[in-house]
């Protein structure tokens, strides 16, 4: 049976998707401004920050309204509470894209330190995670969401690799420190973006299946119970 409430849930869904599209664009543009050394892409990132923030607040208000007025239950309840969290994750990702764009502007002013290899790979991985976490959200796909969560380790280890490599550059040539730190920050921001995509994956699993997997909570609870016995 079609309910009036379904229209309201659909409109919340659309707001989240609009937000997701802006965030995906922001991340792609930020990475591109870095790779192509082009300031215009960075400016495009800054233009998207306001609309993303606006949607973030919109989504929050809409969720509060639906909770208060519709007293949702079961899958409706899980969709709305997850929607609230996914909105916050997206907003943080948007901020991180802005941070990358800012670093990129600084790096434009100086000659490149070395050809970029691992950072674009990290960026591609992180973007893939963002894209798939959102696809999992759209198609309510628990399996895909789980798969996204598993990919996080790969990004983490690439980030460590980037960090170690840049460390050697800095040790060899103190003049490179400024630029190397910039790239270390970019690596860190990409790694954080992948973390937020993982969080979205976890939210999607909760939304679809009602299961909490974050922080390996089952394990922690089992251990705590074992200790208490």
């Amino acid at each position, binding site marked *: *049976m079609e*309910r009036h*409430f379904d229209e309201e849930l659909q409109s919340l869904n659309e707001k989240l998707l609009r937000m997701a599209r802006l965030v995906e664009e922001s991340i792609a543009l930020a990475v591109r401004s870095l790779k192509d050394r082009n300031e215009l892409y960075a400016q495009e990132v800054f233009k998207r920050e306001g609309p993303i923030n606006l949607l973030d607040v919109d989504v929050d208000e809409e969720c509060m309204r639906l909770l208060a007025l519709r*007293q*949702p*239950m*079961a*899958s*409706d*309840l*899980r969709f709305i509470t997850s929607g609230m969290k996914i909105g916050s994750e997206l907003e943080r990702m948007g901020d991180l894209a802005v941070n990358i764009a800012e670093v990129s502007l600084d790096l434009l002013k100086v000659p490149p330190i070395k050809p970029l290899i691992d950072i674009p790979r990290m960026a591609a991985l992180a973007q893939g995670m963002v894209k798939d976490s959102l696809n999992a959200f759209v198609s309510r796909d628990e399996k895909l969401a789980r798969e996204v969560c598993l990919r996080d380790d790969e990004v983490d280890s690439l980030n460590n690799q980037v960090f170690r490599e840049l460390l050697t550059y800095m040790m060899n040539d103190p003049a490179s420190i400024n630029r190397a730190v910039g790239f270390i920050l970019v690596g860190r921001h990409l790694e954080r973006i992948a973390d937020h995509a993982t969080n979205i994956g976890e939210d999607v699993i909760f939304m679809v*299946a*009602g299961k909490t997997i974050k922080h390996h909570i089952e394990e922690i609870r089992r251990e705590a119970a074992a200790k208490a016995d």
Partner: protein
Amino acid sequence: MDPKVKIETKNLDFFYGKTRALKSVNIVCAEHMVTALIGPSGCGKSTFIRTLNRMNDVIPGTCVTGDIRLDGEDINSPRVDVVELRKRVGMVFQKPNPFPKSIFDNVAYGLRINDLAKGAEIDDVVENSLREAALWDEVKDRLDENAFALSGGQQQRLCIARALAIRPEVILFDEPCSAIDPIATAKIEDLIMKLKQRYTVIIVTHNMQQAARVSDFTAFMMLGELIEFDKTEKIFTNPANRLTEDYITGRFG
């Protein structure tokens, strides 16, 4: 620690003539817990709680099969005195139904006819029951007034006090708030949550939010069948059965 089982039904069937109103219902009601029964009209939830103190006995042409155990004892056994059973399993109905007597006499009635208390003892039990039903402060200066002078919500709490006076072990509530306003409803819900410390409570309600607010366990019934039974939190956040999900999210059609 698992709570103690107070009432348990096994393969419970109930017939109104040829109509099978309950179909092999298996439920366990835990002691000192509130169990809520929800489901669309005609799903058998009222029929179900009425089997628990044999209120259906008075309807001609009905028949019960299967097992209902109160503290492990079969309540339909010929050895069971139905009046004794109803003392142990009290009931509060949809519409407040005080007797056309004074407030005091309404609560004292069960004590007197059952010879459970005398004289000053009756005064004590009446006061305690009215206190337990959160009505004492509102009526203590007008105990001699006719019960019909009370508001609907007060009348319902008076009926609860009347049920409590004979110290039942289980109280059945059959949509106790459907005829009273939201403030009185809130008072009765609050009361139900307090009552479970001393009694086992089973409540039928059409109001899902009410089931969600007051109960520890929820049973969802449809067309005489028990569809799902679980902790209330589980039923309202992540029900296992598609039918439960559709009903509590209002998708039923």
